[in-house]
């Protein structure tokens, strides 16, 4: 502890030195030239000065160079004139394990006097060594570079790391940075980091101020550090500091519980949205048409695999051979943002693919079973098994890889609450689907026909509506919505043959609880179930028990409202 003042003085001295040296001695030298010079120096102090001088260069260049040095990839080569040269090994070794050499300073191949390239083996060269002191300086430089990185996210990371290190020597540096920092987020992080560093201050009053500050900030990162300070203060009998620590800890704990509940709420909302998107198609086929489609889950998988295929079409192409039939479709070999557009194509494609399968299902099987709902349950279950096995035979039993486009990955953090983009997207997508479904049912002529047929099939037929056709279109529409759900699930989880099975029970429960035949009820029940599952998971700390409890609660709920939240009123029996 006694040494910190001296070390800080040394640091300031070095900083001062580096300020002058960079201004006077090394005008406009490239980092690689500086490293090349430093690597062959014999005097460690001179090396340090040179390395320190790198702190104002760009991190992108310096960090890899220093890493190479640290990892012993830089060698010393003595040329004919007796000059030491820092070199790198280049290319592949030949049969004698010899490499071509490249000068570090200018990147040119090293040649002998006769102009031929020099080849040497590792054993013939001296490695440019680093000792622990030099490595410390290097780390200081890289830390400094990271702290002043132009990339806000990287800078933020570096500031947070510095705070956790609690190295008092870095305090002046942080203060210096705080004075010039523009980004609000980084500024906050700097304040937090400085307070955390001050926790290690010798001055107990300073510690107490820092603790209070951290408590006010609700700094989650500083919990451990504050606990240490409290323990020390407790031992030393510093009552006011202990009290301050307790207060800060309580503040932080309440902040954490706020963050957690907000996070739970958000995750519940997104889980509810997933349920909603999965169940909305079912709300059409089951709720409106009364068809129990156990293959609904497989229609979801159709959508997910369609997304997978489209993704591959935008990349390397489709190359597989189901049942020994080779299918080779060359891809567009796009990458980056252009590739990311695949998802926009996949959305309508998965809708159409699932709607097509649904259409065939309706024409081939379900239309014969409208009067026998229990049997439609069984027949569609048979279909679901056939489809599952077909998926396995075509795409393999393992999950396939569907990568999210860049615009769907990443986070958005507000006040320590993390909002994943894909979850935000899930919620937005659910809203969009609900809106589309509502618009289709209430604002289009197809919707009018659907509602008419579902309310009274016989009467609608008498009015000249082709009920057969309407059934077909309705079922295809519901199936298409399942396909959309698949496209959407492919972005947040694995895509495999069993994907649909995981959601089938949940989505049936969602529709039943919401009240069959009522889209709005489905929305409410999906959000309700999603929220309850997430909150119970949070409270119990165990996802499975939560789920079991929710299933039990649903059974009890149906005691109270046997036909769901929003029952369709009817005078007819059965």
């Amino acid at each position, binding site marked *: 502890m006694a040494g910190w003042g001296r070390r800080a003085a040394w640091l300031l001295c070095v900083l001062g030195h580096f300020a002058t040296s960079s201004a006077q001695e090394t005008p406009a030298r490239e980092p690689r030239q500086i490293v090349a010079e430093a690597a062959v120096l014999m005097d460690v102090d001179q090396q340090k000065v040179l390395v320190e001088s790198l702190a104002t260069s760009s991190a992108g260049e310096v960090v890899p160079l220093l890493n190479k040095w640290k990892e012993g990839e830089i060698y010393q080569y003595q040329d004919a004139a007796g000059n030491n040269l820092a070199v790198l090994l280049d290319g592949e070794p030949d049969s004698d394990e010899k490499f071509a050499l490249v000068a570090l300073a200018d990147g040119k191949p090293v040649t002998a006097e006769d102009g031929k390239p020099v080849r040497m083996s590792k054993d013939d060269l001296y490695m440019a060594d680093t000792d622990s002191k030099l490595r410390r300086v290097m780390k200081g430089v890289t830390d400094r570079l990271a702290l002043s990185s132009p990339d806000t996210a990287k800078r933020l990371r570096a500031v947070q790391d510095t705070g956790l290190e609690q190295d008092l020597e870095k305090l002046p540096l942080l203060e210096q940075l705080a004075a010039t920092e523009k980004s609000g987020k980084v500024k906050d992080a700097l304040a937090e980091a400085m307070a955390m560093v001050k926790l290690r201050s010798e001055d107990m009053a300073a510690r107490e101020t820092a603790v209070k500050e951290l408590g006010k900030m609700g700094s989650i990162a500083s919990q451990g550090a504050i606990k240490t300070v409290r323990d020390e203060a407790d031992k030393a009998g510093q009552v006011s500091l202990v009290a301050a620590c307790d207060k800060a800890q309580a503040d932080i704990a309440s902040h954490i519980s706020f963050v957690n509940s907000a996070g739970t709420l958000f995750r519940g909302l997104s889980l509810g949205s997933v349920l909603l998107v999965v169940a909305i198609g079912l709300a059409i086929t089951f709720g409106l048409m009364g068809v129990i489609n156990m293959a609904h889950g497989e229609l979801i998988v159709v959508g997910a695999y369609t997304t997978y295929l489209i993704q591959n079409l935008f990349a390397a192409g489709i190359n597989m051979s189901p049942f020994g039939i080779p299918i080779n479709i060359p891809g567009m070999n796009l990458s980056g943002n252009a590739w990311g557009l695949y998802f926009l194509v996949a959305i309508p494609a998965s809708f159409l693919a699932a709607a097509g399968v649904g259409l065939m299902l309706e024409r081939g099987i379900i239309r014969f079973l409208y009067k026998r709902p229990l049997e439609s349950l069984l027949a569609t279950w048979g279909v679901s098994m*056939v489809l599952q096995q077909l998926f396995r035979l075509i795409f393999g039993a393992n999950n396939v890889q569907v990568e999210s486009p860049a615009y769907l990955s990443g986070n958005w953090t507000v006040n320590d609450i993390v909002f994943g983009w894909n979850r935000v997207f899930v919620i937005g997508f659910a809203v969009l689907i609900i809106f589309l479904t509502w618009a289709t049912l209430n604002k289009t002529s197809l919707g009018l026909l659907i509602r008419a047929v579902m309310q009274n099939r016989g009467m609608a037929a008498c009015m000249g509506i082709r009920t057969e056709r309407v059934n077909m279109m309705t079922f295809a529409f519901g199936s298409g919505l399942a396909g959309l759900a698949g496209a959407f699930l492919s972005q947040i989880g694995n895509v495999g043959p069993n994907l649909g099975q995981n959601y089938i029970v949940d989505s*049936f429960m969602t529709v039943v609880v919401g009240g069959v035949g009522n889209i709005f009820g489905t929305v409410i029940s999906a959000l309700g179930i999603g929220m309850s599952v997430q909150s119970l998971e949070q409270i119990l700390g165990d996802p*499975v028990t939560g789920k079991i409890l929710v299933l039990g609660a649903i059974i009890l709920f149906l005691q109270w409202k046997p036909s769901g939240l929003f029952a369709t009123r009817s005078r007819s*029996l059965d």
Partner: protein
Amino acid sequence: MNHPLANKVPNLALAAIALFLVVGMPALNAAGSIEDFTLNTWGKYLCYAILAISVDLLWGYTGLLCLGQCLFFALGGYMMGMHLMLMIGKLGAYKSDLPDFMVFLGRKELPGFWEPFHSFPFAALMVFLLPGVIGGIFGYLAFRSRIKGVYFSILTQALTYGAALMFFRNELYMGGNNGFTDFRSILGADIRSPETRRMLYLASAITLVLVFMFCKWLTTSRYGLIQRAIRDSENRVLFSGYSAANFKLFVFVICAMIAGVGGALYVPQVGIINPSEMMTEKSLEAVVWVAVGGRGTLIGPIIGAVLVNYLKSWATTKYPDFWLIIMGASFVLVVLFLPKGIVGIPAQIREWLARREGRRAAAAEEELLTSAAKTK
């Protein structure tokens, strides 16, 4: 068809089949004509047949498609399994009095609810009691609020799903994911010896015959009449002053117990029970057997269970990739074209012939009329 013997023939055939299953098969096995493995496999089929009858009594006779019958089957199996686990004694891998999985979970002593399972009679009682009680509670809740039709199916599916999730957890001390296995002895006899296996087969066959006879009696009694009336028009039954809910609850509990017994006989024969036995797929599979065999009859489920499982054993070894497709597709075809299952085929043919005959007669009559009109 009104000849007095005509009604006796099916009964005689049934008695002959029963006699063969109960006496013939074990005797042939003891004589060496039927392999031990075959007999064991048939024992398994007969347990499935018991399960199938319970599904049919609900679905075919009462109109309640229960997707949770395998839950009761598995519960019965678990009750028997608990006893068998305790009978392993110190022969397990950890040489402990506790079942292996408990040692593995770091448990020092037997959980309280395991204690009574040292006794076989208690385990046997629980085989009836637990499925009965769970079925009773669930049935009471469901029927009281008049949940019926597909809603009932979906709810039973949810019940099964929830129970399976629960049994997958280690904290329940029911073996978690792996369930119970590695049984050694039952009632003091080595569970793997051919003699014990034969006795287990015999027990399954006799139980099946008893269950069959019980269900035959039940469905032909006045109770059975109301049961079918509920299936065909529940509201009329209600308006006639019967409490449909109580009738349904009764049959639901009975069926849960039958399924439980099936499971209890099944577990010592296959030597394993785990939560995957109570997944919804298994219930649906049992429904497939009933649909294929012919629902609304008592012999149909037995035929269906044996036939489909026989087919399954054959196809999963010969065409493992295509078994699910065969089963799924045949199921779709049965639902579409054979609504009464295999048992209903003769009636369907007769009906078809009668229709054709009727059409032909109508055509002939019409021709006669037109020719008569012409001659005028």
